[in-house]
């Protein structure tokens, strides 16, 4: 424990010492081969009833890789003016969202979309971002740095800043076995970030404890809300149909749907799944994201247009706006909960998906503040 603290302390000193470094183009080559490269496997525990996580063969999870990824995630070194880190828009206490309708990046620039929760992101197999335009965490991690609305930095600059950074030199050596500092690449940065994000498993909610039978029951209202969510009340309650697109246990179908947020005209002016595939059937579609920790991630939808869960349920009970490609499971005349007490029950169920263990898990906290 004590050595850990000393280590962290040294790391912190090293970091603060280096922050202001202005990297030179002809930085010296630092041989790192005297530092042991002996990464230890990090097994991501898969909770009961969860699917297996698919981990790319060329990026096995290691303790050293996860630690490096965690430092990078919280380090504003990745942005042009050292003001923004991944954690600026992905805050642990908000299940790694930012509480804004549209994310705010460098120079106060407002982005096009709302930030996304990273809880259980390692289980996503069918594309990332609201429109699924990237296929893996390794590819996704390359995006924010050069996004002018986010970190607005050039990768060669980030790499140079990392290459001259004594602590990162060591961490990259330990995680990826580089021989010298010049071997640090953006792909390694992305791999480390992906490794860290895969460890963000959330399975400690009341709902999880219920399905694992660690607690015997949900409250009556919560239980009835769950029945509506799953269309499972045998006709006693209105069916929400939610589970079709937000399938348990991850509460996402890992797929794209048109849930009636935009009219045809609005869809034509918005980047949706259609802009990724070019297929008419994808008009107006977005990823049906996980509803885990949903009580923490307001405002809702890709554009943050719905401020509260009340607004979300209201949206579904009215069927949203009509359009050519709106999903038939979002019917204007549907059986979606409509009475105040039904809506209340559904929200109470959604609240059981909040995982306070996850948002307090020390393993995901800012390493610079620990």
């Amino acid at each position, binding site marked *: 424990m004590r050595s850990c603290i000393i280590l962290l302390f040294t790391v912190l000193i090293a970091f603060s010492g280096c922050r202001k470094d202005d990297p030179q183009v002809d930085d010296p080559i630092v041989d790192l081969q005297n530092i042991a490269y002996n990464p230890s496997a990090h097994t991501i525990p898969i909770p*009961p*009833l*969860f*699917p*297996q996580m*698919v981990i790319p063969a060329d990026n096995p999870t290691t303790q050293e890789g996860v630690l490096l990824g965690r430092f990078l995630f919280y380090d504003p070194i990745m942005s042009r003016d050292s003001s923004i880190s991944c954690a600026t828009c992905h805050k642990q206490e908000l299940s790694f969202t930012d509480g804004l309708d549209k994310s705010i990046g460098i120079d106060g620039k407002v982005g096009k979309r709302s930030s996304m929760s990273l809880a259980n992101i390692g289980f996503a*197999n069918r594309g990332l971002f609201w429109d699924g335009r990237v296929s893996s965490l390794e590819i996704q991690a390359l995006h924010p740095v050069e996004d002018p609305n986010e970190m607005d930095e050039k990768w060669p600059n980030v790499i140079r800043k990392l290459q001259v950074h004594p602590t990162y030199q060591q961490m990259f050596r330990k995680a990826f076995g580089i021989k010298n500092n010049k071997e640090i690449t953006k792909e390694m940065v992305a791999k480390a970030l992906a490794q860290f994000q895969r460890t963000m498993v959330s399975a400690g909610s009341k709902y999880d404890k219920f399905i694992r039978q660690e607690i015997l029951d949900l409250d009556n209202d919560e239980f009835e809300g769950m029945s509506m969510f*799953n*269309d*499972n009340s*045998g*006709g006693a309650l209105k*069916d929400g*149909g939610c*589970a*079709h*697109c937000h*399938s*348990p*246990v*991850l509460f*996402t*179908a*890992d*797929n794209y749907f048109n849930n009636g947020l935009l009219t045809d005209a609005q869809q034509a002016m918005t980047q949706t799944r259609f802009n990724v*595939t070019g*297929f*008419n*059937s*994808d*008009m107006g579609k977005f990823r049906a994201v996980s509803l885990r920790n949903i009580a923490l991630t307001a405002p809702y939808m890709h554009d943050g247009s719905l401020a509260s869960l009340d607004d979300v349920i209201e949206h579904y009970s009215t069927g949203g706006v009509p359009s050519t*490609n709106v*999903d*038939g*499971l979002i*019917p204007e005349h*549907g059986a979606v909960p409509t009475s105040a007490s039904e809506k209340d029950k559904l929200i109470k169920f959604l609240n059981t998906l909040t995982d306070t263990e996850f948002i307090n898990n020390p393993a995901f906290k800012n390493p610079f503040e620990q």
Partner: protein
Amino acid sequence: MRIATLLISMIVLLGACEKEPMVVEKAGLKLTFKAVYDSEPLLLSRNYEFMNGDSIRFQRADLIISDISIGNSKNVSLSQVEWLGFSEKNADPSKIEEGFSFNFNDVEPGVYTSLYWNIGLNQVQNRSTPANYTFPHPLSNAELYWAGWNSYIFSRTDGKLLTESGTYDFSYHTGGDILTRALEWNQNIELKAGEVKEIIIYIDYKKIFVQDGEVYDIKNNLSSHTSAQIAVAHAIADNMKLAVKYELK
């Protein structure tokens, strides 16, 4: 000189091969499943002419199929589970002719008299859940599992009926052991050693709703999700069985 060495070694190698025990050559069978609407390849989100002046458009068209085998005196199992995800494949106009092909290259040559398969899963398979499988196994897909039924969703046929009086969203899902449908095609299928034979299996989405001129009342039976709508699910599962056509290439 080098060439001579090469030639000699080739001859030696070839000679060695000859002495190996005779390997009985196997036959190949390729099964291709295609979604069509009235014999045209099915394109998602396209309006098709339906009956009585109405149009129909499909938003989802997916099936889980299982226990594919061919038989004569004995049954040869070909595959346990396959996924016909037309929702994704037939969204792409350039792929709608393609269908889903499964190649079985290791079949005992001979004359087979039947092809068997299920739309849906057998009871043993249907006791598993997505947690038992790893992506991209079709049964790892949580979207295809319906906890309320303790079952996979065997088929999804979702879309819109466009009529003069308005648009009707329909959503037919089948699932639960009793909704598995066993199909059988009795036909001589001769598989010769070293040759591949192809069978194309068409699922005609119009036929799911129109059988011998009789039109299914979509407007008054819009979905089949709850136990109260089980009759709808049975009707769709039965019709789907009748919507299948085979072609031996």
